[in-house]
């Protein structure tokens, strides 16, 4: 019985870890760092997710996708709970996730800023070392700090002249 429990917990985790992000389909929710916990209890599978942005409209789709995937794998009872205790940070995106972003033309985030005391204003354009995911040049410039989704900034490459998205550090 104990073995069965362990086995299905491992299986539930495996299934949940395959579910992809609705807006960044090249990334799994696990690689994005949104999937925080998968456990099997007496009541079924319990999954915890942490939203990337407070207003993220994809949360409902993520919950539905996780529920559907687990139910299709044979877990009848699935509960998805929201875990807000620690805010999501781009530092939680895995190495594999960063590779996948780059391969799909999206520049992965650098290290998220940490603050002690009042947060300083940044009135000059943000300076990041951003490498063009198309041609590999590091001569890039920011076009806008807000992009097609809440988590991205717009950049352009000064060598190949292509525009691209950069996942911004939070």
């Amino acid at each position: 019985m104990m073995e069965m429990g362990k086995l299905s917990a491992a299986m539930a985790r495996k299934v949940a870890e395959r579910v992809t992000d609705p807006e960044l389909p090249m990334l799994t929710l696990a690689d994005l760092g949104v999937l925080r916990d998968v456990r099997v209890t007496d009541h079924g599978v319990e999954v915890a997710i942490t939203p990337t942005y407070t207003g993220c409209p994809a949360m409902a789709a993520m919950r539905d996708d996780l529920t559907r995937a687990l139910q299709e794998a044979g877990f009848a009872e699935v509960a998805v709970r929201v875990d807000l205790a620690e805010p999501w940070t781009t530092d939680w995106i895995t190495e594999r996730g960063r590779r996948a972003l780059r391969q799909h033309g999206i520049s992965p985030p650098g290290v998220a800023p940490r603050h002690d005391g009042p947060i300083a204003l940044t009135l000059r354009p943000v300076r990041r070392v951003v490498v063009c995911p198309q041609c590999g040049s590091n001569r890039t410039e920011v076009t806008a700090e807000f992009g097609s989704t809440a988590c991205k900034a717009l950049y352009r490459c000064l060598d190949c002249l292509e525009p691209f998205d950069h996942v911004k550090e939070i």
Partner: protein
Amino acid sequence: MSEIHTHAPDEHGNAYDGLLVDDVHWAFGSGQEFEHSEDPLAGVDVTVPDGVDPAALASYCLMLGDDALIMSQRLAELTSRGPDLEEDIAIANIALDLLGQARLLLARAAAAGPTVVPTLPEGSPVPAEDALAFFRGDQQFRNVRMVEVPNGDFGETVARLLLFSAYRLALFQRLATSRDTVLAAVAAKGVKEMTYHRDFAGRWFLTLAQGTEESRRRVLAGLTGLLPLWPELFETHEVEAAVAATGVGVDPAAVEAEVEVVLDEVFAVSGVERPDTRPLAGVQRLKGRDGRHTEALSRLLAEMQVVAREHPTGRW
């Protein structure tokens, strides 16, 4: 009578078919069948901390939530009206972040003090946070008046966003250590998001102030129009005093000096002297936090709430 087809049906027959399959994408259901909306605090511990008055906590959450909701609505009105595509998208993104904060804060208000939630017809599937957003009258809104006044031009939007985000970022930094774990979590997350909002507004303020004579005139006119509503943000309401005393909220007066330092920095770099204005009085001393608003809020709510109020059961 047989069905009439103007062309052979195929899987791409109707561009609108796809719109009606997935209710989760609709703010207020698809009109055909109302899927129960997900609880934004599903599985979150919403126990009110020891020694805290649940009613005061609920009122405080309404204040913070309403500030975000009304500011978000004003910013959302600008969608497709930005000076260029990048700024249009930025403003919509900022509005979305604030709407997300509003949703959690209104849900937290409802969980702490269910009596604040308006009563809806039997069987209405509208969740508590939507009932608070769409079914309260203007005098039940607790936002500061600065967020409700009508939009001006882009200069005015930049000035308002600078003032609002400087205030709210400082407030949320302190709120991140609230004894209420939900407020602490919302605040910690909000700090990350609003750091980007404040930088965006600060950069544009500098750009406009140091741009052309006309851009400078406009951003200063926007600022001058808003400053009479600025002191209200730092006046301590009795609810704020109560929640600050029990360690779940922040007294806004406590962050005023810190916020002014940020503004002074922006004004100095922009070569702007702070305009001299007089505070806008309340009605018998009552202001936004007391539910006494300018006429503009009623008009905003009329537009924002009309669909929900027409269809309180989510069907039409």
